[in-house]
Structures are given as C-alpha cells and as structure tokens.
C-alpha cells in the first residue's frame, strides 16, 4: 500500500514521543551493558553462566507458557459461551469478566494472599472439611504466581477472543450444520479455525504480560520464586546494579520479541485465506 506523505505526518507525534521517552532511555540503560572500556558481551556471558539466573529465566518462560495455556483453555470456551448468550446476559457476563481489571493489581494480589495464606480462606475451608490435617503452604510458590496471573490476564484473553467470535458470520455455522456438522464439529472445523488468529493475539498479550509482570510474582511468589521482572527490580533497586538490570531488561525484550515472532508465524500458518495472493 502506498501512503501519501500527508498521512505519514500523522505518525510524527507518536514517533517523537517514542524516541524521546522510550528509545533514548532504553539505549542509555542498554549501552553500559555492552561497554566496559571497550565493547564487550561479557555481562551477558556472565549472566548465562550462572545457573541461578538460568533457573529464573526458565521459570519465567515456563510460568508465562503455563499461564497462557491455562488462559486459552479457560478463556476460549468461556468466550464461545458468551458469544451464544442473549445480549443482556452477555453484557452482564462481560461486566463480570472485566471487573478484575478495575481493581489495582496490588489489591488483587492481597486478595489472593488472603485466600491462599496459611491462615487463609482456602486452608481454613479444607481444614474444616478434614480434607487436610495441617495448613498447606500454597502461598509463595509458582502455583500462587500462576493462579494470580491467570486471574489477572484471563479477561484480556476472553475479550480478545469474544471480539473475534462476534465477527464470525452466523451463516457459516448454519451452513456447516446443513452440511452435516454437529455442534462439536462446527465448532472445531469452522469456529475454532476462524478464531485462531484472535486466540493467538490474546495469547501473545497474556504471554508478554506474564513475562513482564512484577507485582503479582513479587507478592505471591516470594523471594524463592523470582522471575525476571522481580530480579530486575532487585538488581536495580536493592542492589543498585543498573548494569545487571540492563542485561536482564534486554534479555526480556529479546525473549518477548522472539515469542511474538513465533506467534506471528503460527498465526500466518492458520490464517491462510489467500489474502495476499491476488486472483
């Protein structure tokens, strides 16, 4: 597509803003990580040599992946169900879905502390039912991080997928049915393939969101279950080591970009409706 120069001008304010307030500060953080009298990647080699760091990198990736998968498994059917309900029920459900987004993430994490803690709601409940003899340590674990983050990002996935589902022409489903597809088949063969691009966009948001989340892992994960974001904060704030923080920042950026690229490739695989080849 050819854009007129006038149209390009519309990008100017945004571009200036990004350069001044994002790229320049970013460069000033990243620059020292490559420079110690001369150009060096020593800091990065150091990072990857340390098995403690690798553990955190792996945990971050793993938790992000698990959270994304759980969100998809829980979110897609929910979105599909919502798309089938009447207008009124649906706006009610949507309000309920979006409600968590209206509360501050610190408060949400506190809620989970109340639920998961040793003296928390869940433990008291299980104790009172005699299912467990002693309170179990649910809090400050990967499990707690996963639960808290799923709770945080599920609405995003649901709304993204719902938006895509709404745009699927109802005639397509009816056509599938007249052609002998039962409800399950019309879902798997028609609806699902058509909303895979939406699922991927949603997953991408959840994945990058989890990867960079700070509050939830900090509050629910504790010091034993650090993730890249919490480690970055610790390096910068507690230890004052901005160079190491910069290293972690770049690693996070690279991982995010890589994963986004992979998602894009998958999305293109599924979304081959022949838009680019012209008849």
């Amino acid at each position, binding site marked *: 597509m050819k854009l007129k120069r006038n149209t390009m001008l519309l990008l100017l304010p945004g571009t200036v803003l990004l350069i001044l307030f994002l790229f320049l500060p970013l460069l000033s953080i990243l620059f020292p990580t490559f420079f110690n009298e001369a150009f060096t990647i020593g800091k990065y080699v150091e990072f990857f040599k340390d098995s403690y760091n690798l553990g955190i990198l792996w945990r971050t990736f793993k938790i992000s992946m698990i959270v994304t998968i759980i969100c998809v498994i829980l979110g897609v059917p929910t979105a599909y169900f919502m798309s089938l309900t009447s207008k009124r029920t649906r706006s009610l459900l949507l309000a309920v879905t979006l409600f968590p987004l209206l509360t501050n993430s610190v408060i949400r994490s506190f809620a989970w502390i109340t639920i998961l803690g040793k003296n928390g709601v869940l433990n008291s409940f299980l104790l009172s039912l005699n299912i467990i003899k002693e309170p179990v340590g649910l809090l400050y674990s990967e499990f707690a991080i996963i639960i808290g983050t799923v709770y945080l990002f599920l609405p995003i996935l649901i709304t993204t997928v719902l938006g895509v589902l709404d745009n699927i022409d109802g005639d397509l489903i*009816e056509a599938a049915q007249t*052609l*002998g597809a039962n409800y399950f088949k019309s879902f798997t063969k*028609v609806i699902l393939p*058509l909303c895979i691009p939406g699922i991927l966009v949603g997953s991408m948001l959840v994945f990058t969101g989890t990867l960079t989340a700070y509050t939830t892992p900090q509050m629910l994960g504790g010091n034993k279950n650090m993730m890249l974001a919490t480690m970055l904060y610790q390096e910068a704030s507690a230890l004052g080591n901005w160079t190491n923080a910069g290293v972690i920042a770049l690693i996070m950026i690279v991982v995010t970009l890589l994963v986004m690229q992979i998602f894009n490739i998958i999305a293109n695989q599924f979304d081959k409706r022949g838009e680019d080849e012209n008849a």
Partner: protein
Amino acid sequence: MGFVELKNIDLSYDGSKYILKDLNLTIEKGELVSLLGPSGCGKTTTLRIIAGLINPNSGSFIVDGENLTNVPVHKRNFGMVFQSYALFPHMTVFDNVAFGLKNRKMDKNTIKEKVGRILEVTDLSQFAGRFPKQMSGGQRQRVALARALVVEPKLLLLDEPLSNLDAKLRISMRTEIKRIQQKLGITTVFVTHDQEECFSISDKVAVMNNGDIEQYDTPENIYKYPSTEFVARFIGFDNFFNVEKANYHNYKDIFGHQFVIDYEDSRTQAVATIRPDDIQVVPEDSNMNSIKGIVDVRTFLGDSYQYEIKTELGKINVNHKSEKPYQQGDAVYLLMPSNKIILV
C-alpha cells in the same frame, strides 16, 4: 401424498406475533418450487423451517413419508445455498465443497472423485485450490451451489441465491441452476422476490403474503389467472373495479358500462382487473368494454407512455405506445379486450 409436505405450520419468533399461520405446502419429487412474495412475508422463515434451522411452534414437516419435524439440521441431509453464500473463508474451494462429504465420513478417494465431478458440472475445476476471497461473485455463487449439491441432498434449498449478482449474471446463473437441477432431478425450493426470475425457472410458484400462501400453481396459471387481488397486483395487474354478472360472459360495472369477459367464473359479484399494457386507447367510443376518460398524468417510460386516466371508475393506468402522445386533458376512450380482463 407429496414428496415434501409442510402441514399446518405456525411460527412465531417472539411467542406473540405469528409470522406464519397455518401454512401448508406440498412439493412433488423433482420439482422446482419457488416461494415468491414481498419483503418480510416469511419466505426465508419458511425455508429455514424446512432446513431445520428453526423449529415451528406447531405443525409437521414430512419428506418422503418420514416425519422430520424434530430432526436436527445436521441430520436432514438437505443442501442449502445462503444469500450470503456462507463459504468457509479458511478453506479452499475444494475443501469447502468436500466439507459435507467429510462429515459423512467418506473415504478420501470417493471424496476426491465426487468433488471433482461436481466442480466440473459447475465449471469450477480450475479454481479448486483458490480461497473464496480470490473468487468473483458469480464464482462464489457456484461454489455455494456445488457445496450444497455434492452431498446429493434430498432437498435443495436456495435463499435468493442470485440477489448479489448483476443483472446479466443473474440470468445466466438462473439458467445454470435450472440446468443442474433438472440434470440431477433434485427437488428444490427457491426463494425470491423477483417475479421474472421466479417464473423463468419454477415448475410451481407459491405466492406468499403475510405468512400465508395465497396461490400455489404453475407460473403460467399464476400469470394468467391470479386467484386473489394480492397475487394479481404482485404480478402486474392493476385497475381493479367491481362488476356484476348479467348473464354468461356479460358483466356490468356499477355505472352500467357493459363488459364482455371471456374468463370463466361462476360468481355473480367479482372484481375485474386488467394490466396497464393490455388496455387500448382509442379515439371513439364502442359500446362494449370501453369507458371514457380524461388524461391526467403522462409519464415517459422509454418504449411507451404511461397515462393515468380519470374515469368514472377512478384512476385507470394505461401503457400506450404511440407516435403522437396524448396531452393532459385530452378526452380518450379506453378499450379493454374481453380476453384480457380477469376476475379475482
């Protein structure tokens, strides 16, 4: 008993207002039947009941002696072509057409063979690998048709399949549909609100009004002998006036004008009607089948003029070809040939 029978069908979407009331329709095997009627009269609703996409509030639907009223859509084995075509955008033409066969768990080779054959019939073989987005309107329409036909449905349902095409393509596609339908001998219900399209391809036409079938007959009979005023108006009759039978084929209007009407009818009171095209404008009175009038409005139609003429019977519309058009205020006589007047 017919091949397809709709019996006493009632339908209401909201439980209070009935869209279809006691609708009955019988279709013989191999026939192409059209549902014709103005917008909102319930054509699509009737078709969707046949397809099983909506359930009637009461009544039954029978095909080939089998009561299908409560059989779900996906078990009916009908082919349907939607007005929007509803092609699956994520599948190639081949996969779109093969979809119904795959649901029937056929083996790969049979599917390949059947799809290949129907693509040939619909002249789409060279497009098998394309996606719907890469096809023209007419081609998509044929894909939709091929997809519905390939499963060898008991019944083919078409909801205004030609309405998105331009005039020229409409004509060639409707001939195409008729050709394929006849070749495969497939019982077909065709929904349209275009009279010409409907008459040209149907074996029978059900003219619908307000959720009811007003007349169900061959196109010829409907064209010549509409049975109600609504049907008459819908297919181009105009100029309605009350007449009373004197004797035999002799009738009188309320002002005593005499009309000879060839139409066979036993009633003593009836409404006479005639198409604007069939009225002749003559300069002199003849004592039968003619009335006097004054030209009120003249409109140019291209190959003729349309006149609105004030008469004792009210306004009469006439289409008239003449070199020298009449002017407003001219006194004329209108001759209504005895074989062109019908009674409803």
